[in-house]
């Protein structure tokens, strides 16, 4: 267990590699109750759109979407999931940003309700659908980024077909006092392995997904972060969100730097902060996340590089403990996503 943002987080249970493998081949259950959960009346979609570049008005009931809070410089204040439950929009926000996000939302969204009484479990992996369907058969029919209220082990759960591993899976929101009961029921299934935050990190990195505070923060825009796909046509055209002018300009001109995937040669992982050098040995950027990818059996990293170096296969070098290690720019995700479509 490690302390984080006032929470005590489970880092590992049986071992990171075993837990990682469980999520890639069977099912892994993560306790991600530290994530903040807040909700709004669905009628506040218009007001929410003044804070995020995502299309919230176009988010149909029963659907979920990834977007982010931006500041006036188009810097990312947090990345969030928004689920349309019909009458209400439920937002999942990062634990380390929750207090700041709530303070940021309040003046614009007076109907905001914070749900500190809700826990969040993530059931991830190719067998996750088999596990959850034994308790709630309707889960099998949910599409990727679908939203439903299901009963699991006699408990009402807000379920989305989503996750942070690149695998098919479900995130399950429950009242905290019922969380242990639901977790025990899912862990009792033979496919399920309990998994900690260390495996969650290796999984999301192989899947090319951003970690707030590492890969994105107030100094990076969604366009620099290669998250332009999260901004639909209407919002690109109409703007009406913080930093819209900067986003529109970067979409038109191309940003000066891009978040890219990097594959170091050899086995040495390049951790966050590692300097990236171009072929002349000049500083080209920094690694923002790096680890050893258990599924690939090789180190993987993400970082920002100058736009002229951001094409796949570009040869770069990483300065690890004073030594130059060759690396090349690689397409993200490193491990193909296996979401249901």
């Amino acid at each position: 267990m490690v302390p984080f943002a006032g929470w005590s987080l489970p880092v590992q249970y049986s071992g990171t590699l075993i837990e990682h493998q469980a999520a890639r081949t069977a099912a892994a259950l993560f306790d991600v109750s530290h994530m903040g959960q807040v909700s709004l009346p669905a009628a506040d979609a218009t007001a929410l759109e003044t804070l995020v570049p995502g299309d919230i008005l176009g988010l149909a009931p029963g659907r979920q979407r990834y977007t982010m809070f931006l500041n006036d410089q188009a810097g990312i204040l947090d990345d969030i999931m928004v689920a349309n439950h019909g009458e209400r929009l439920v937002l999942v926000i990062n634990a380390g940003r929750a207090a700041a996000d709530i303070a940021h939302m309040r003046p614009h969204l007076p109907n905001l309700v914070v749900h500190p009484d809700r826990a969040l479990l993530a059931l991830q992996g190719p067998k996750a659908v088999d596990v959850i369907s034994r308790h709630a058969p309707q889960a099998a029919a949910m599409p990727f980024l679908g939203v439903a209220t299901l009963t699991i082990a006699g408990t009402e759960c807000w379920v989305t077909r989503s996750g942070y591993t690149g695998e098919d899976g479900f995130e399950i929101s429950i009242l905290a006092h019922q969380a242990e009961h639901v977790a025990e029921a899912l862990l009792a299934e033979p496919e399920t392995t309990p998994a900690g935050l260390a495996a969650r990190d290796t999984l999301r990195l192989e899947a090319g997904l951003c970690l707030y505070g590492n890969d994105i923060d107030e100094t990076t825009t969604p366009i620099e972060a290669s998250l332009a796909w999260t901004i639909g046509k209407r919002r690109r055209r109409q703007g009406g969100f913080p930093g819209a002018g900067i986003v529109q300009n970067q979409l038109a001109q191309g940003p000066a730097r891009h978040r890219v995937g990097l594959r170091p040669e050899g086995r040495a992982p390049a951790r966050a902060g590692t300097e990236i050098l171009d072929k002349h040995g000049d500083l080209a950027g920094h690694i923002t996340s790096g680890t050893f990818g258990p599924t690939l059996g090789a180190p993987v990293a993400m970082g920002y590089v100058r736009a002229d170096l951001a094409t796949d296969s570009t040869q770069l070098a990483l300065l690890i403990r004073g030594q130059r290690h060759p690396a090349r720019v690689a397409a993200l995700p490193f491990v193909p996503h296996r979401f249901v479509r």
Partner: protein
Amino acid sequence: MAETRYTSDHEWVRLEDDGTLTIGITDHAQEALGDIVFVELPEVDRKVVEGESFATVESTKAASDVFAPLAGRVAEINEAIVEDPGLINRDPQGEGWFLRMEPGDEDNFESLMDEEAYQALLETL
């Protein structure tokens, strides 16, 4: 019989019959590090001073330095752990050894913790 001693950095040092020292990390160390995925060892013949960082291990969690428990010259390295770092987790005080050293002029082996002292240290953690 070869005697094994320990450091407060959770390394073990075994005095072999030929006077060389075999060095690795303890079971407690591998447990604390978690799954080890990368090892960098010094070059053979490198002379190291006591306390110098002479190897690096990386787990899925973080990178850690390994410090020379005594001064000396690196005589042999265990290539098997470079190829398969998981050996350190599976057999830290056997197949997962790091390297062999010829001790320097000053013989400080006796200054390291014996088994009993190391066990007592572990009890305090």
